[in-house]
């Protein structure tokens, strides 16, 4: 088994770590506060404002750092929610089959039949905007994807003899799910975790860009693109900076996830390590 980390994954890890550190220590690292107006509208990059200023004259770098907090934080919470729900329900469906599986699967089909973004827009425009609603809506909608994956992995495991042996012993449902099936389903799930997280970042950015995500003056990256998008017509690149940040984060996490997938997929006919 090789222990060396491939270059791609290493680059991904360094970039992701940098972004996370920026987010966590934003109050210490950011040169200005998030909301303070410190200069002219859309100033170019300078030694005072490394990335220039935004549509209201706020420091773009500082907003990017605080924005990372919001983006990463909400995406992480939503991922946790979607994973816990998706895994629990997916494993139950896989372990018990029958009407439990049928009901859950058809419900998920129903949710998946409607484009996620549109469904989210409808729900969020009805409910009062808050971080909690946002996290719940994002988490629940995304858990359908996790459910599908976990169920398919779980069904493969549930027919193995050791699961049958546990059933014959008379073990309860919780034991079968959490002790017999879950530990064997973890590897493929870990890789999926990264991909779902990126999807959450993109989802949140899209919602904010459409004005239903984080409300001003607080900002996430998607919201920053929205605020500065008018500048593009005048050749001002302020909107491209948060957009680029989203892309860079997505790519770096993907590079890590690819590596994890390779490491863990030997069971599923993937690369042997």
């Amino acid at each position, binding site marked *: 088994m090789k222990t060396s980390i491939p270059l791609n994954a290493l680059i991904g890890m360094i970039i992701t770590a940098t972004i996370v550190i920026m987010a966590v220590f934003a109050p210490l690292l950011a040169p200005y506060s998030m909301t303070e107006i410190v200069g002219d509208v859309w100033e170019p990059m300078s030694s005072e404002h490394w990335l220039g200023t935004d549509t209201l004259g706020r420091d773009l770098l500082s907003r990017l750092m605080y924005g990372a907090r919001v983006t990463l934080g909400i995406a992480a919470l939503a991922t946790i929610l979607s994973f816990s729900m998706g895994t629990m329900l997916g494993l139950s469906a896989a372990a018990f089959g029958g009407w439990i599986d049928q009901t859950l699967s058809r419900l998920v089909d129903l949710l998946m039949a409607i484009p996620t973004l549109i469904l989210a827009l409808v729900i969020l425009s009805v409910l009062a905007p808050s971080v909690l609603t946002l996290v719940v809506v994002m988490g629940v909608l995304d858990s359908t994807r996790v459910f599908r994956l976990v169920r398919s992995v779980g069904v493969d495991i549930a027919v*193995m*003899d*050791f699961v*049958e*042996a*546990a*059933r*014959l*012993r*008379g*073990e309860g449902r919780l034991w079968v799910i959490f*002790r*017999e099936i879950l*530990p*064997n389903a973890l590897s493929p799930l870990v890789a999926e975790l990264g991909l779902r997280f990126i999807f959450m970042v993109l989802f949140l950015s899209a919602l904010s860009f459409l004005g239903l995500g984080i409300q001003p003056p607080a900002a996430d990256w998607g919201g920053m693109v929205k605020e500065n998008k008018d500048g593009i017509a005048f050749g001002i690149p302020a909107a491209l900076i948060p957009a680029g940040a989203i892309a860079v984060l997505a790519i770096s996490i993907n590079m890590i996830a690819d590596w994890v997938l390779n490491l863990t997929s030997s069971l599923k006919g993937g690369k042997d390590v």
Partner: protein
Amino acid sequence: MSDETLLKIRDLEIAVEGTSPLLKIVKGVSFDLEKGKVMGLIGESGAGKSTIGMSAMGYGRGKLHTSAGQVILNGRDIAQAKRGVLNQLRGKEVCYVAQSAAASFNPAHKLIDQVIEATLEHGLMSAHEARTRAVELFTALGLPSPETIGDRYPHQVSGGQLQRVMTAMALCPKPDLIVFDEPTTALDVTTQIEVLAAIKHAIKITNVAALYITHDLAVVAQISDEIMVLRHGEMVEKGTTDQIINDPQQDYTKALLSVRSAQHEEKPATEKPVLDISNVTAGYGKIDILKSINMSLDPGHTLAIVGESGSGKSTLARVVTGLLPPRIGNVVFENTPLPPKQTQRSREQLREIQMIYQMADVAMNPRQTVGQIIGRPLTFYFGLRGAKRQARIEELLHAIELPVDFADRYPAELSGGQKQRVCIARALAAKPKVIICDEVTSALDPLVAEGILKLLADLQEREGVAYLFITHDLATVKAIADSIAVMHQGNLVRYGPKRQVLNPPFDAYTDKLLTSIPEMRIGWLDDVMAEHST
């Protein structure tokens, strides 16, 4: 080198690439194979027999490569040959017959197209000639309607027929050498004998040379001129078939020869059976797999259930465990009828009937240690914890003849035989009165299987547990059973004490089953086939 030598292997070493120190799979094996002769390669899994067979085609699986020695085929060394040379060679001079025919055919193409593919690829014959030859070979191999069977798809013929079609595929380009890699291992014993006879006949009339790889000495004795016994990648013994079978020199060869000779004294019948299967009819959907089955198991006895695949033996196990409720009839444990569904049975009822599976690898959770696997029934059924539980785990490990420190190992760190022993310990931990053994030795090497059977017999004597022993291998039955139930297509065709079942007069099916077991003597196959044809 004489003109007659086709394949000459000298000091062959095959190793896994990139390991240090070099992990050698084959360690310095040498032999010659003359034209038209058959060499049997025999040994348990990991002996390197398939690896040597593959090397005759210049092929190494995965990261295997030839680290030293020569493989000389038709006068040239192919051990380090380039891909282009090998492509010319494979499917023209040397062909391969794999163990699993079902996995080796492309399900999307007709059989005939796959049979003649290599021949056409090498431009050896016109399509018409190749088809004619294929039909000749189908006839020689005893396939039904040889003219048209080639128009079928792989799923439209049986496993035994598919294996014969694959042999025809290998013979079609008129190669000098065929490598047979366990061609009959996956087949039922009654099918195996037909395929074996067909292969033997085809080798004879085409005068092709062959490397015949198997773990079954009785099978290889029927077909080969010479036998080489391998173990851990080294040669143990080599000689003519007569020398190896009748006058083996090495202890290991002698052990392999004595494998099927184990005997078991039948125990006298008792008054009350521990398990009574009464008038059971069961199946899936509308189809009945089991039809009015009656049998009973005495305490401390072994009832062997014998039959080919599809005879319903495993379905019977599912009925007994409650995974498949019967349509009619019931299962009675110590005079109390068991609820038909497993979920309706009490914990105590579940404890009394335990199960051991065929594939020990998948019968254990790979994320649990041996200690956790054996310990769970102790906690679950008896509430044992802490030191008491630890002490009982050690006791059980001792009973299955494994060291105590195995408790901290994971299943992946055990050998096949050790895994099966742990499964036995898990069943035993529940202190059951009945253990269902579902083909528990089928996936194991003969010597390892013998060890497992001996352990089961010892444990039965000590613990007084009864076995419902499901198997397709009659040699195993002789070694362990007190009574025997022969099943065929869901019916019980013969049932009674061992002596009665294994002695004449026989019904037709039992006779066929009994005569199909390979015997460890030269000429057995010819005798049986002669008998069948009269």
